[in-house]
């Protein structure tokens, strides 16, 4: 018994030692890539792209580490802190500044140029992934928001078309809520929901800027406060579902397809879930409603590929990033993940081909809509987005805080973070 235990312990130690000695990290032809979200189809598609990379570069080998979204941030943090650094990692926009300010991300500016890609690449692609004009990540797709609406409920409420302005958005929600058991808007009050507030506040302000020229947040402008008042009123008047206050992505989508609420502020990846459960004639999409200035600033998030600063195989890693973003691969990847692809030609084809794609098609083509990008260069943005706004937004909807107090709190947070960032930049 004891002898067995000793043999077992020695074997485990031996295996660990052997793993440590084999030293994959320093094999120049062996790359490690981390994906921060996983599903069988997604991982298989990524593996296909890696296989074609290996085939095009004989001798190269790429290993994938798949993490689940809920724990990805802490797991990668632990990997990096423990010195087991991957070569390429998937980078959501709101993580970027944390990693860059910690000195963990390689500067790609000298190595990857716009000219390496097809001409119709979305204009802002490189700029979105840059901080202080240095390129740290290249988006592979965009989370662009549009308004999905339930045509059958609209018909029952006697409404002919989706709301074009914020006033119409409010009136439509109110009118739909007169129907028994239905409310107007599927609010997302939990994590991932704050971008709705940002859209509403900036659209009411008439400018997609988070900060004025002095570096102060625009969230305490009168327009922004009015925007928050609008959503608070929608909630308190019962025009959005009462329990939507802590809805996440899944609940908003199920609320929409079950007919609990008639309008959904979502990214195109919601469409794949809707397609499985609703008839495609029963819903469509339109761009986000326009504000008093006649403009609207739907939120654009992104997720891309970054190379780690501590990678010892950067050249191979850059090559892999270029391969993953090549036109055919990006098309497959965007179709699989439900994101807006970075090539305009592809995205037009995708959204023109489906009935529910109208909202996105129009948003990308009409000048009245331009994109709202979070100040992703602020290291505090992840905390702001996933904790501060979620909890205080819920408190506002419940009436514990007024829209004005809430707007002030958010503005103070952002202004302080921005001043800190500017000071660091000047030094």
């Amino acid at each position, binding site marked *: 018994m004891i002898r067995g235990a000793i043999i077992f312990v020695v074997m485990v130690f031996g295996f660990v030692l052997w793993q440590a000695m084999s030293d994959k990290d320093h094999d120049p032809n062996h790359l490690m890539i981390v994906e921060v979200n996983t599903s069988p189809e997604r991982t298989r598609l990524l593996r296909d792209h890696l296989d074609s990379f290996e085939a095009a570069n004989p001798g190269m080998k790429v290993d994938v580490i798949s993490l689940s979204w809920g724990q990805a*941030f*802490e797991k990668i*943090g*632990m990997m*990096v*802190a423990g010195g087991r650094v991957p070569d390429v990692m998937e980078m959501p926009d709101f993580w970027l500044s*944390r*990693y860059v*300010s*910690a*000195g*963990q991300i390689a500067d790609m500016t000298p190595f990857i140029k716009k000219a390496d890609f097809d001409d119709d690449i979305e204009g802002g692609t490189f700029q979105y992934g840059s901080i202080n004009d240095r390129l740290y990540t290249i988006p592979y797709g965009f989370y662009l928001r549009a308004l999905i609406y339930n045509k059958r409920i609209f018909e029952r409420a006697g409404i002919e078309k989706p709301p074009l302005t914020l006033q119409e958005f409010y009136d439509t929600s109110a009118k739909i809520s007169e129907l028994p058991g239905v409310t107007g808007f599927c609010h997302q*009050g*939990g*994590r991932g929901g704050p971008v709705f507030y940002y859209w509403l506040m900036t659209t009411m302000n008439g400018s997609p800027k988070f900060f004025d020229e002095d570096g102060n947040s625009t969230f305490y402008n009168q327009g922004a406060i009015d925007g928050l008042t609008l959503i608070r009123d929608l909630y308190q008047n019962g025009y959005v579902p*009462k*329990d*939507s*206050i*802590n809805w996440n992505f899944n*609940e908003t989508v*199920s*609320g929409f397809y*079950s007919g*609990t609420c008639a309008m959904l502020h979502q990214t195109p990846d919601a469409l794949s879930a809707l397609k499985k459960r609703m008839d495609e004639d029963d819903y469509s999409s339109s761009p986000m409603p326009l504000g008093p200035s006649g403009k609207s600033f739907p939120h654009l998030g992104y997720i891309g590929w970054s190379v780690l600063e501590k990678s010892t195989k950067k050249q191979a890693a850059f090559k892999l990033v270029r391969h993953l973003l090549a036109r055919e691969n990006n098309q497959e990847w965007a179709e699989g993940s439900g994101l807006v692809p970075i090539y305009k030609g592809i995205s037009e084809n995708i959204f023109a081909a489906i009935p529910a794609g109208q909202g996105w098609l129009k948003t990308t083509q009409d000048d009245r809509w331009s994109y709202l990008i979070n100040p992703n260069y602020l290291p505090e943005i*992840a*905390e702001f987005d*996933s*904790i501060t706004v*979620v*909890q*205080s937004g*819920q*408190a506002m909807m*419940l009436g*514990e805080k007024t829209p004005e107090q809430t707007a002030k709190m958010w503005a103070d947070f952002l202004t302080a973070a921005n001043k800190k960032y500017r000071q660091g930049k000047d030094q």
Partner: protein
Amino acid sequence: MKNISINNPWFYLAPTIVFIVLLVIVPLVTGISYAFYDFDLLSGTQTFVGLEQFHKIMSEDSLFISSLYNTLFWTSTSLFFQFSLGFALALLLKDGFKGISLIQPLLFIPWAVPSFLIGLMWVWMFNPVTGPIPYALEAIGIMDQPENILSDPEHAMWGPIVANIWFGIPFFTIMLLAALRSIPDEIYEAAKMDGVSAFNIFRYITVPLIAPTILITLLIRAIWIANFAEIIIVMTGGGPANSTQIIATYIYDTAYQKMDFGYASVISIALLFMLMLYGFALGRLRQKMPVYV
């Protein structure tokens, strides 16, 4: 070299001491030391800030105070129902009935379900679109209309508590059942011959004899529940408006959402301190109890 002889008691204690130091003391001290630093995991930078973060938690952190109240409510309510229902179930199972061999293993299933799955399962049970609970509550008149309890800041905590009770009952049943079955039948027989009533048998024989087990399970379980964040994270994420934020979820948010390991460590120390006080009090109680057998 004289001390290292097989006659020296330290020689025999050494392996245990080495393991305790390596596996308990070193990680504990490392964790506590973070509290004095502004610690960034990603860049690995550590700036010494002394007692600044302790000052913050004492004076300006209102969320800490509200999570403290929530922790007390969450722990005591979960513990109370887990214990009483688990005890009742153990008493039922003790004497046995027809088909017990079939039912007994089924009753222990919740204990084997991963906590994240429990959270997800109950989230959908409380959701009026997918789950039966809101309609049941409406039917018996507790709710005016089927609503999601998890979105109501005044009652949201009951969602995770119900899930936790469901999860924790088997623990008490298993432990108390084992204790009940260890009481010799002769004592009961003697009591019956003396004409002691069923209630008094329970009061003066059963309870005192399993009291040590009750105390120790209550101690372990309370610490466990106070540290048990997964169900809340999955079900409400601490919301709405921080109404279900307990200290354990607050630590998780601070460490892994804000990436502020230093402050997370300060909160952990506060929790550790309170749990130690609780453990100490219960330990004293245990010592004062008369010992039978």
